[in-house]
């Protein structure tokens, strides 16, 4: 297996793909947004219970490749308890990691996605869940909003 592939499919990613965290619908959610990738058919819904301006609870649901599912799973563990500006900052860091391959020390597990940068076609897989989460935070309290597609 090539070095690029081993970089892409890190243990952290395989683990989140196999045992996704916070997967399923969130019965208490008061925000939800769907993201999809029309070209590859990947789908991701993110459910939030906002408590004031913070994410009190979060879950995701959907189908797609290991990168998209692991990224959404890991994201839910990283943004729980955060405010919208904090999530934006984290997303900016994450976006830098997947587009440049440079992961600063302090960035924890998200650095596992650095290998994505060698596979430009997969960047949108890695960011799918993040887009849905950011949309969900911006959305009005239920009913559901839909993002047809997204731009990286």
């Amino acid at each position, binding site marked *: 297996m090539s070095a690029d592939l081993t970089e892409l499919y890190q243990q952290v990613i395989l683990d989140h793909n196999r045992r996704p965290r916070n997967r399923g619908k969130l019965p208490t959610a008061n925000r939800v947004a769907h993201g999809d990738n029309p*070209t*590859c058919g990947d789908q991701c819904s993110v459910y939030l219970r906002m408590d004031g301006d913070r994410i009190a609870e979060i879950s995701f649901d959907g189908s797609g490749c290991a990168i998209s599912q692991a990224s959404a799973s890991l994201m839910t563990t990283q943004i729980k308890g955060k405010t919208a500006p904090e999530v934006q900052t984290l997303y900016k860091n994450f976006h830098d990691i997947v587009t440049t391959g440079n992961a600063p020390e302090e960035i924890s597990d998200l650095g596992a996605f650095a290998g994505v940068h060698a596979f430009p076609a*997969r960047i949108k897989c890695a960011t799918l869940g993040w887009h849905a989460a950011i949309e969900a935070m911006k959305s009005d309290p239920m009913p559901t909003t839909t993002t047809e597609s997204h731009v990286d």
Partner: protein
Amino acid sequence: MLDIQKIRADFPILHQQVHGKPLIYLDNGATSQKPRAVIDSLVHYYERDNSNVHRGLHALSMRATDAYEGARTRIAKFIHAADPAEIIFTRGTTESINLVARSWGHAHLKPGDIVLTTEIEHHSNLVPWQQAARASGATLTYVPVLGADGEGGLDLAALDRLLTPQVKLFAFTHISNTLGTVNPAAEFCRRARAVGAVTVIDAAQSIGHTPFDVQALGADFVAFSGHKMCGPTGIGVLYGRRALLDQLAPDETGGGMVSQVTYDDARWKPAPERFEAGTPNMADAIALGVACDYLDALGRDRIAAHDAVLAQCAMAKLSTLPGIRIIGPRAGAERSGLVSFAFAEVHAHDIVTFADEDGLALRGGHHCNQPLMRKLGLTGTTRASFYLYNTEEEIDLLVASLRRTVKFFGVT
């Protein structure tokens, strides 16, 4: 028997490495590669003959016109059309089907009518009929596909029930780009004709792979693309029976398709010009004629036999992989040269990424068949689609690559 090594030598693109491995191109369902003769034809046209057709009286224009109309005649022969005027050049299958859906649909469909299609169509032979039905108030109905894996083909008993006199048009694919099912096209045309319905065959996956005779099939309209049959991109054909084309109004209007124009009105030329407004895609049409020569010199019956051998070989070898689910006809049953499969625990995009590292070009996703995927309970499949230059050794390398991938993801 085809001499595969000799054929491979005709395709310059095949002789390259991808990620340090020899390219194994198994994405022919999406587009085929082009032989040297087709590439040379494009170069020759632009270096020697380029000029606008049907307009000029100078030498180049006449040469270009002769070559363009010669290609039309060549393609008529390729599908055994009665008259070259039945060949309309388009951008491809999608544009051809849209032309029928808009021109024919607008003239003939009304509320209460039924447009019949099937559950296994490519979006190109589905969305245009949704639009035509919506615009006219007609109803769109689908012939169901049988079996949890679509292995049973289309439900012929249901087809008999669904083909009522209200059905004005029946649009179906000859070969499914996802399942590999080969539909009994002649039988479908016969049954449709019995209730007075017009037939539209999506021949995108069959035209370059199997002998094709529009008159023997009894088809009214046939749509196909050049790029899947060794021809260039950007060129395709709508075949229409002369009697139907003569009654049909154009979809697009402009130069080249009119006989008389005044400030108040315009009159149309007959087919095919009526449906080819504007400067046509001359270079690619001419090169498509060369692709017809190339395929016929080898013999489409032999290409079909080669596809069938590869498909059965792939079915046998792929089925040894742990956890694989192959959709479409079962091993041994008739199937075109493609196999789609899925693993419950490994997504198609991960498979395709791993295969790419081994030099293999595969397709992963919904294959422009979203409703069918949903019906089969799949989010996507990986597809290996074969053509005249593929070999059994390539299938062995495919299976070895897949075996490594599923092992990596812990499927045992």
